[in-house]
């Protein structure tokens, strides 16, 4: 069975073809959209789902646990795709481990994560309440990183 990394939240159509595949889903801090939405939808579609934290992508690829990376875009611009922050890491890791990365349409743009989100985990304060944070929800991923771009 093919093993696929999921980075982002897929659009509805993606879930129609998820049988006979193994999915590793990045949780997507700070709002955990990967854990709470993507993983949830995949499980409801009877897929085999394993959750990982966003910092495990490189290791999964290095160990040969991932055959393909699927990253989900919100918008395609001239030379970039607007994707969830962390997509660049997935792309750089895929490039260095010779793993195919494909872009797929994401679910409609989610509400912007509340500021201070990274200070909390699942609504519980983790560190110092007044610590400075930097929390970009999206980033521009150069289309050069992608082997394939699937339109909606």
């Amino acid at each position: 069975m093919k093993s696929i990394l999921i980075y982002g939240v897929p659009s509805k159509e993606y879930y129609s073809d998820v049988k006979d595949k193994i999915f590793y889903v990045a949780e997507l801090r700070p709002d955990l959209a990967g854990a709470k939405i993507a993983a949830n939808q995949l499980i409801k579609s009877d897929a085999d789902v394993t959750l990982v934290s966003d910092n495990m992508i490189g290791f999964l690829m290095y160990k040969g646990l991932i055959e393909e990376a699927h990253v989900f875009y919100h918008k395609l611009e001239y030379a970039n795709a607007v994707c969830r922050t962390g997509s660049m890491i997935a792309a750089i890791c895929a490039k260095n481990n010779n793993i195919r990365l494909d872009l797929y349409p994401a679910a409609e743009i989610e509400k912007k994560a509340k500021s201070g989100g990274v200070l909390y985990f699942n609504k519980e304060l983790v560190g110092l309440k007044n610590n400075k944070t930097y929390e970009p929800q999206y980033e521009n991923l150069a289309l050069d990183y992608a082997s394939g771009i699937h339109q909606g």
Partner: protein
Amino acid sequence: MNNIAFTKLGWPVEFVAKGSCCTKSRIAGIKDTAARIRLEGDTLFVLDETMVPKKVSYIPIKNYIEAARAIKQMKTRAFGQVLVCVYALLLTARKNAGKPHREFLKSLAESAKAIEDSRPTFPFNQLTGMVLGWAQAAAKKKGPIAPAIERNIEGFVFGIKAKKLERAKKVAKLIKKSCTILTHCNTSGELVTAAQIARQAKKKLKFIATETRPYMQGSRLTAWELKEAGFDVTLIADNAVADVMSKGMVDIVIVGSDRSNKSGDIINKVGTYQIALCAKEFNIPFYAMTQQPGKDKFDKTTYMEVRPEEELLEFNGKRFAPKGVKGYYPSFDITAANLITETIRL
């Protein structure tokens, strides 16, 4: 350091000279954050790192079983677990003082095994082997073993702290006049020491700390330590590393390591490898603080500790992941030497 002899592994054997330059393991004006460990009588008090920064509290440990449990549960980690390992063996030595040598050595070996098994990726066998070596040497001389171990552990701990200070000074030299440093996980206060030395040299520093899921060493320990020491620190999710690098917000990366080898590869908290790849992609220097290198080769077959999936799928005992979803939590990853600009060895 002139009066300290070193074993093959580089650990100080016996510290006998008092009043030498080596009695200094601190620099004036450098503040320590909470001590990881203190020994009071026959009880070891170990900082519970899972509670920081909400609470600075200490777990009392009276024997090697409690020590191994604290290590396994990651109540202590990194340099804290090094100290817990050696002091736990000291507690065993004290409990067995006066017993016949054969019995003494057997008890010590049992304690050593329990600690080695607590977290298999960490090279505890280097530490336990060192202590068992002292014990065997004392037994061979037909002298009392417990005092020999006590003396050598005192020298070891003092020496290792002095070496860490020297390493922090080298790290401080790497930092330019004005620098934003990205770091991952937690270096048990050593990065803070390096930063304080750099600040004394009038360097202007800022930090970006990754939160370091799932244990959150970055949010809970690193950001706290740096803020306590008066540094500007910004917390980011692990997934924002490439973003900050691509925007020119990072000058250098400095990380610690749990293990290293003679080829210059390191094993460190999971997430380090992908940070190194990103640093290479964006031409950002990547530095790693290392210890005495081991002989092992690191590759895809190297055993990496895998933590229980609940530690990923739950937070403070509450599951947030949907039912039916599995979790995978490799604790460490490997960063090859070709991704590292320079290692700063202990």
